[in-house]
């Protein structure tokens, strides 16, 4: 008897819903994150996830988008593996029906996914991987955007710093012997050539090389007055240790690879004075958004202070990337991939973000929202990252 009445009520409610009498539940707008959230680069994926969810909560607290539709984040792990990256890209779009996808740390994964976003007409916004040809991929229309650094722009920035700020004219390049090192050799050489400067030496090292003193000695013999470094944390640490051994007082200007691991822990006070590029720093005076993001990091993720924010660029880039996508959805008046893409390329609204104020940051020609002008030079000081002034 009781069960019968429950069923009766349920049937009645169903009928009412069908008839449109009850207010229809607004379907959420789903957004994807395809990044490495396990394994060695897990810290980067976690940092991106934090930035996205803080921004997402802000949008939802304002009442969501398109007249009350809430945002929802779907996370998939690419494990740093390009094949896996392609699989989850399809899964996010075809099964999870996401409107747009944010990307992670690995350039190789991002490059493998480029054709998928175009085939499925889904906009992709990179938040970390810096490979130049991820965004400059020759596709028209181009579905791939980025709120992060880009190797070519980074090289331009590093060259400008070495030439104008340090006033050095005899650079020595010290690069890891990988595709990443290669792409920066091209970029650094190109931008130095613009200034009529030629590197006095180009030296390479392999992963896990124990001793970098021969490479440093060759650069020193060649008369280098600044070392341009492209390395991840472990090899970067061996470079500064060998530099102390060789007894060479020379400034090191580095790409951001050394910020990804535990560079300061590995080098102790030897890291002091090494400068490198970032898109954002949570140290020093923050704008209103910076304060808000730091507070959210403290409240939600137990972060104690700026020195406790691991992989800070991931959080900062992802935070701004989500707000830009939200604006694009609002402007497109739709969560349809192609329409959101068109809106991203022509954002009318100005967005006073965390990293900068974005005024029409993306155009059909420019798919990188951040350029060399927006980067920040920072320096290791007592194990902390401090902006250079």
């Amino acid at each position: 008897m009781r069960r019968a009445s429950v069923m009766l009520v349920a049937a009645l409610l169903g009928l009412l819903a069908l008839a449109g009498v009850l207010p229809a539940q607004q379907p959420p707008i789903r957004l994807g994150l395809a990044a490495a959230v396990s394994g060695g680069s897990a810290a980067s994926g976690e940092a991106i996830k934090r930035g996205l969810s803080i921004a997402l909560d802000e949008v939802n607290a304002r009442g969501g988008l398109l007249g009350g539709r809430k945002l929802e984040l779907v996370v998939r792990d690419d494990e740093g593996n390009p094949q896996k990256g392609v699989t989850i890209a399809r899964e996010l779009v075809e099964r999870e029906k996401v409107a747009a996808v944010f990307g992670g740390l690995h350039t190789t994964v991002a490059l493998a996914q480029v054709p998928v976003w175009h085939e499925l007409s889904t906009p992709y916004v990179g938040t970390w991987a810096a490979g130049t040809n991820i965004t400059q991929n020759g596709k028209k229309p181009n579905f791939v955007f980025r709120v992060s650094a880009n190797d070519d722009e980074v090289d331009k920035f590093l060259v400008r710093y070495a030439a104008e700020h340090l006033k050095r004219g005899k650079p020595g390049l010290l690069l890891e012997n990988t595709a990443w090192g290669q792409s920066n050799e091209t970029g650094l050489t190109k931008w130095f050539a613009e200034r009529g400067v030629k590197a006095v030496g180009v030296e390479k090292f392999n992963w896990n090389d124990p001793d970098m003193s021969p490479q440093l000695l060759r650069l020193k013999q060649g008369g280098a007055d600044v070392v341009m470094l492209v390395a991840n944390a472990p090899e970067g640490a061996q470079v500064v240790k060998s530099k102390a051994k060789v007894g060479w007082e020379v400034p090191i200007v580095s790409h951001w690879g050394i910020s990804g691991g535990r560079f300061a822990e590995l080098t102790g006070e030897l890291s002091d004075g090494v400068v490198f590029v970032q898109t954002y720093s949570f140290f020093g005076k923050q704008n209103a958004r910076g304060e808000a993001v730091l507070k959210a990091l403290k409240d939600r993720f137990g972060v104690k202070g700026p020195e406790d924010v691991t992989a800070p660029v991931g959080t900062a880039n992802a935070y701004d990337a989500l707000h830009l996508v939200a604006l694009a959805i609002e402007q497109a008046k739709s969560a349809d991939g192609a329409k959101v893409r068109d809106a991203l390329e022509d954002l009318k609204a100005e967005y006073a973000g965390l990293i900068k104020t974005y005024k029409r940051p993306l155009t059909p020609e420019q798919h990188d929202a951040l350029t060399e002008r927006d980067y920040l030079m920072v320096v290791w000081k007592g194990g902390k990252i401090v902006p250079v002034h």
Partner: protein
Amino acid sequence: MIIQLLVSGLALGSMYGLVALGYHMTWATSRTLNFSQGHVVMLGAVVAYGVHVAAGWPLAVAVIATLAASAAFGLVVERIAVRPFFTAGSPVWLLSTIALGIIVENVAMVTFGKDARAFPSTLALKPVFLLGAGVYPQELLLPLAGVVLMGGTQLFYHRTFYGRQLKAVAWDREAAGLMGIHVPRAVATAYALSAVLAGVAGVLLAPLLNVSPTMGTLIGLKAFAVAILGGLGSAAGIVVAGFLYGLVEALVAGYVSTGAREIVGFALVIAMLTVRPWGLGGRRPTRRV
């Protein structure tokens, strides 16, 4: 520049020699070796990091625990990756020891993490300068340890009763067995000792190379090259070959190019295998007609 290259090369070479002694240890007994010797070095460093840095045990206790763990691992290698194939006379131990090394590396990635961590040592903070060439005091420990351990293994194999038993196994397994030597136990002992040597190397290298699951791979490979050059059967030959290899690497990298370093190093190994396959310090094997 030349002095710095010589000093760096010798420091590097003593690293290779130290690790390469582990290959000699098992080869001298069983004519087999653990191809993943570099992974055992890594294991030593990771265990030492775990008990000393993470758990805060005093260094002396941590070193003893590390060496005990290394010895235990050596026994495991022998039991599961060598013995089943060794007794059958099959060379499969070559692959099975590599496989075990890969497993160890992946287990370390899951438990320890992929990030390189610092192993603090007061001897690796600041370099000291000898004739204008910088060297970390920790690096000076390496040749010392290399020579002491080389002397120790020589004494053990040539002067002690048990060491001679182990050597006898290498000469003729069946005859040794008939003479009352417990062959499997002898081989197991050699593997445990070899792993202890790797553990010592791991502890000494940790402050210099940083601790990470991949720290041992390259150095294990180069140590193998050194063991071939020096002669797998000769501890002294290996230590000398280690210094030579380190010097060649540093000089080639300094005067030719970093790219040429590996080419020259491994070309030397091939040349040695062609001209004198028993190595610098080894003896030409007697042919039985």
